[in-house]
């Protein structure tokens, strides 16, 4: 297993390299530059030249690329053109914890809701409970965060006034760099964004759990377990559940990607200072270093997420071997 993980991490290096290259070329290919205008007026030519030389933008593109690459390896993601008092590192330090907290909590909610609902539906197969759960699952898959977010805000924020409608409830410094202090204020702020991302995932998990459990419950070894007189609870929890969760593991990859995707929209809706919102707000500007670095971080997260899924897969199903 260690060999497999090392091999996968080594294989990720060319992927990350190509990804940085593609993003770097794409953002630099955009017409215009970061110093075209000063306020509403065009930037005087000589000042623009000076600024571009200051940030090394006058050098050939390949040289800029390798300079950036070596800086990233050293841990320096580069400057911001429009807010010279901050660097990309500062922006990432502010926004990354928020996005990670949001994403992790959304995935947690998805599992905490999805698996029990799926089990309940499967155990009450073809009864009203099953139909209601399945219908609710399809319904929540069909309501994207883009719609659920505003609906939650309107219901719980504007009408009932239970929850705050915007901003994140935790500020740095965080424990270990990303964990917030679990205050009530934090959870009150987090509730709506987390649920608007998490419910879709929960519905997907519930459907997969239900299908997986139904599949497993009709297999021979479950009949054997029942025949030898085990309690139903033992049969379900000890024998059936782990195997029925194998298909569920496949959804973690898309779910992590979905938490990233969802964060672009949800952070915008709830005005959270996360990476997605930063990225979206920077698209009008030509912040080359910020945009490339954020794509890089998303890429690393996705690669680690996929690796985690593969490891989980092997743990759930010992027949799978990667050696």
């Amino acid at each position, binding site marked *: 297993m260690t060999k497999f993980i090392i091999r996968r991490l080594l294989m990720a290096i060319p992927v990350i390299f190509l990804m940085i290259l593609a993003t770097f070329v794409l953002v630099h290919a955009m017409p215009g530059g970061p110093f075209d205008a000063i306020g509403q007026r065009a930037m005087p030519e000589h000042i623009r030249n000076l600024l571009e030389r200051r940030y090394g933008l006058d050098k050939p593109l390949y040289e800029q690329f390798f300079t950036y690459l070596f800086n990233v390896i050293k841990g320096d993601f580069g400057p911001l053109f429009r807010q010279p008092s901050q660097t990309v590192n500062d922006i990432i330090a502010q926004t990354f914890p928020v996005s990670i907290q949001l994403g992790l909590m959304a995935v947690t909610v998805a599992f905490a809701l999805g698996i029990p609902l799926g089990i309940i539906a499967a155990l009450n197969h073809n009864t009203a409970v099953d139909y209601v759960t399945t219908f609710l699952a399809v319904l929540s898959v069909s309501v994207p965060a883009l719609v659920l977010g505003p609906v939650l805000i309107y219901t719980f924020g504007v009408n009932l006034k239970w929850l705050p409608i915007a901003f994140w409830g935790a500020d740095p410094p965080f424990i270990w760099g990303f964990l917030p202090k679990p205050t009530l204020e934090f959870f009150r702020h987090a509730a709506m964004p987390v649920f608007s991302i998490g419910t879709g995932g929960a519905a997907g998990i519930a459907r997969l759990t239900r299908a997986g459990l139904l599949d497993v419950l009709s297999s021979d070894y479950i009949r054997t377990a029942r025949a030898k007189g085990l309690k139903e609870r033992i049969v379900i929890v000890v024998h059936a559940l782990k195997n029925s969760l194998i298909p569920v593991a496949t959804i973690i990859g898309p779910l992590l*990607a979905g938490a990233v995707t969802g964060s672009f929209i949800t952070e915008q809706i709830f005005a959270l200072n996360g990476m997605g919102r930063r990225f979206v707000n920077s698209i009008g500007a030509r912040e080359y270093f910020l945009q490339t670095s954020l794509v890089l971080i998303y890429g690393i997260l*996705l690669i680690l997420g996929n690796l985690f899924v593969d490891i989980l897969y092997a743990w759930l199903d010992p027949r799978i071997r990667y050696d």
Partner: protein
Amino acid sequence: MTAEKQIQELTNEKEIGKGRSPMQDALREFRRNKIAVGGMIFVGIVIFIAIAAPIFAPYSFETQNLRNNRAKPMEGYDVMVTYAEEKCHWYDTPMEWGCTVFIAGSDALGRDLWSRIIYGARISLAVALVAATVSLIIGLIYGTISGFAGGKVDNFMMRIVDFLYAIPLLPIIILMTVYFDAVGRQGSDSALMTAVLDINRQMGGLFFLFIAIGALNWIGMARLARGQVLSYKNKEFVEAAQAIGASRGHIIFKHLIPNVLGPLLIAESMAIPGYIFLEAALSFIGLGVDPPTPSWGAMINEGYSGIRSNAHLVLFPGIALSILTLAFNFMGDGLRDAFDTRLRGRK
């Protein structure tokens, strides 16, 4: 289903002596699934309304009337009389009284929301259709070539897919859309680019959206197509065709693609909600379609800042988006259940 009923069905007089193809089997299964049929009918109705939008939409989707802005649902204004002095009612006949009645209210620029929702269905459906077709064709060609060629070619082509699978496509798609947008605003020297930009303008910014969404979604389809080709490539009927000297093209088009196409079509119908969401999301963050073309995502964005006082500007497009997606989900689930023979008879 009880056993007697099944026996009854099997011994149904009409059906004795007639074989049923797997296709007929699947269609029967699908028809029996009431929810799926309902979803399909609803999608059909929405398609019809979207095509005939000028008939169903009471007003123009782009004409602004600032005196009538932010009308509540079912509220009407007499456009002839001074603002708000004499309100019309929804049961007034618009033609007769010179009344403007907003079934779903009007937005911040006084445009009728109901008309915009109806025209917005065109965008969502067009994206669904084109994205599905584009990703199906690219995925089918790519996957079939990869699976049929095998060996080094297959290995190389699948490494590319793996690479695309490992990178976060949404931010890159956003950057691509921004790039196209910026180039479009600046204009281009080359004749080809100018022509493409012109097409895009004619389509209200949809063309680049299609490219961006298509670029994302063929990957899964290619994997699926390759897997299918691999599983059929060494089946007896293909070997038989090879034995009697059929050409490669004949085997691919007559024997492999018909078998590959079914699962791909079902996968596409399951993927359509994702395409609709992606378009809405891109339009929400201000990319995607150009105003004043109404897209549900863009409408949610426009109405969002006023959610405290005019929630209907967000809720109605949101409901429309969710209901259409729900119908597609029911339809896709039904198709999968009907065509997936492994699931059949397990209910």
